């Protein structure tokens, strides 16, 4: 992590209003290369909105700026964000239930051959390999041609997580990736997050369980009712102090009670 280098992703003065609801208010946020940033906050505090802002799914209200690798981006879109190397595991998973696993894995970034036609062989092969080697599907019943609809909740999540990791993105955003996962699958997901750092890439990690977030992140950002309420490093705060702070913020909206 190099503080002189511009951050991979940065939000400056970003607000977002949905009708009457102000989901984000004047948020400044950044992620550096090789850095894992944990994002904590109550339900409805604006975490997912911030994720979709970074992905170009939402546009900031006038005045807000999105920066990528030191340049202000104009006309930011999900397609652009993905092309530049940002992948996200959305809270809602963003799968197409009636489509096969391989179609879901490559949704929006389908490889084509030199004639511009879909490279289906490659997609099915890579999906099969990822399912076996990565998601640990051993049962022969799970075939890359299977439709996602028939899979279990955890398996679906596996598809969404594996998809985000496949493209070797520079920045991986994980919005509650462990929700509903078994102990072993959760452990695997946390290991993935660590491996992102080891590969010199960056991540934003959202999870309601501080015991998941605290050990793997370099920095913690606390969001409260659409505002940044505080920033910590695991080195500067113990787990007990952190949970205390979280409770205080949830109750009073301020860090100190």
């Amino acid at each position, binding site marked *: 992590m190099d503080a002189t280098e511009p951050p991979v992703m940065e939000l400056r003065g970003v607000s977002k209003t949905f009708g009457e609801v102000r989901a984000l208010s004047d948020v400044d946020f950044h992620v550096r290369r090789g850095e894992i940033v944990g994002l904590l906050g109550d339900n409805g505090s604006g975490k997912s909105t911030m994720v979709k802002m970074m992905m170009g799914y939402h546009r900031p209200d006038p005045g807000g700026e999105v920066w990528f690798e030191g340049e202000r981006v104009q006309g930011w879109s999900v397609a652009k964000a993905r092309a530049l190397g940002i992948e996200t595991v959305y809270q809602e998973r963003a799968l197409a239930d009636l489509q096969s696993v391989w179609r879901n894995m490559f949704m929006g970034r389908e490889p084509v051959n030199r004639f511009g036609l879909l490279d289906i062989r490659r997609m099915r092969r890579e999906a099969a390999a990822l399912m076996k*080697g990565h998601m640990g599907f051993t049962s022969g019943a799970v075939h890359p041609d299977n439709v996602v609809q028939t899979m279990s909740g955890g398996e679906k999540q596996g598809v969404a997580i594996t998809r985000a990791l496949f493209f070797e993105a520079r920045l991986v955003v994980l919005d509650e990736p462990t929700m509903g996962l078994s102990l072993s699958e959760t452990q695997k997901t946390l290991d993935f997050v660590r491996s992102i750092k080891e590969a010199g890439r960056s991540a934003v990690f959202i999870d309601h369980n501080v015991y998941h977030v605290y050990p793997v992140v370099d920095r913690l950002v606390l969001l409260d009712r659409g505002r940044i309420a505080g920033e910590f490093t695991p080195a500067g705060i113990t787990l007990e102090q952190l949970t205390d702070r979280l409770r205080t913020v949830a109750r009073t909206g301020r860090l100190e009670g």
Partner: protein
Amino acid sequence: MAKTGIPPREEVAAEAVPRITPRLFLRRHALTTGTIGIAVVMWTIFIVAAPDVFLNSRIYSAFGITTPLWGMMALALTFVVITREMDLSFVSVMALGMVGFVRVHEFTGSVLLAILACLLVGLACGLFNGFLVAVLGIPSLVITLGTMFFFRGIELALLDGTGVPLTDDAFGTLRDVLNGKTAGIPNEFVWMVIIGVLLWVVLNRTRYGAHLFVVGDNVDSARLMGIRVTRVKMTAFGTLGVVAAFSGMVASMQSSYLWPTLGDGSLLLPIAAVFLGGTSVFGGIGTIFGTFLGALMVGSIQAGVISAGISGFYTQLFFGLIIIVSLVMQTLISRRMRS
């Protein structure tokens, strides 16, 4: 790179996709298999009921001339339905495109420019539908009912309600290409096959085709994953517009006359063909092959009932029966596949 959690490429290449057993294959293609089954049963009944009609090649050539006039539109309509939309206006686009044709021909005397104008009018109508649906977010069933009347109204106003004879010698080549025969097969049918193959490739072998499925399956997921939903839908409507205008040209050249009512009464047949072919009204599922089979079924009922000398009103009875049986079957199959 070793610790990215992603298997290195060589490992990926070495991993074979698990084989699909014949049973699994049948299960996966249960819908298509079912549609083929119904088609075969229906055809067998026809042959047994009226062997002299259905074993005679005359009915097939009659069929090959009439079915494509709306069957080509059924193929393109499949794209729209897969995105979970509907279009009712293509029957009017058929005629409006031909107005472009005759007007440009009058002005320039060029058949080539006339053809181009016809297809461009079709494209413009389709994109207009797409704009209203995808950009403004108006439900397609409702808004294309509006554009159906609107396009028809423009056409009637421009033609002043009277038809245009298309007997100019300059149309000879065009008529040969559209309405001649190739190896004994009516060119109308050849065009339907060509369009079917093209659309099949687009749907199953291009990124655009993959996006059609995702948009119809879950539009929010599509947006979150960076698929340009508006563009995908507009292109689907645009494609149908072009194919409708082309169909209008084929039909008009066939009768050497542009009827102001061209397309009237062709609305329900393509829609029936699309649903008979197993395309889901809920979007995300559909095949060009299924629609092709559906069109053949609807077309053969139409041709068969009339040729067999059965009174015309039995056609509707047959249509109704086939559609109900097919949809019941499709529902049962989908339910079984889910459990």
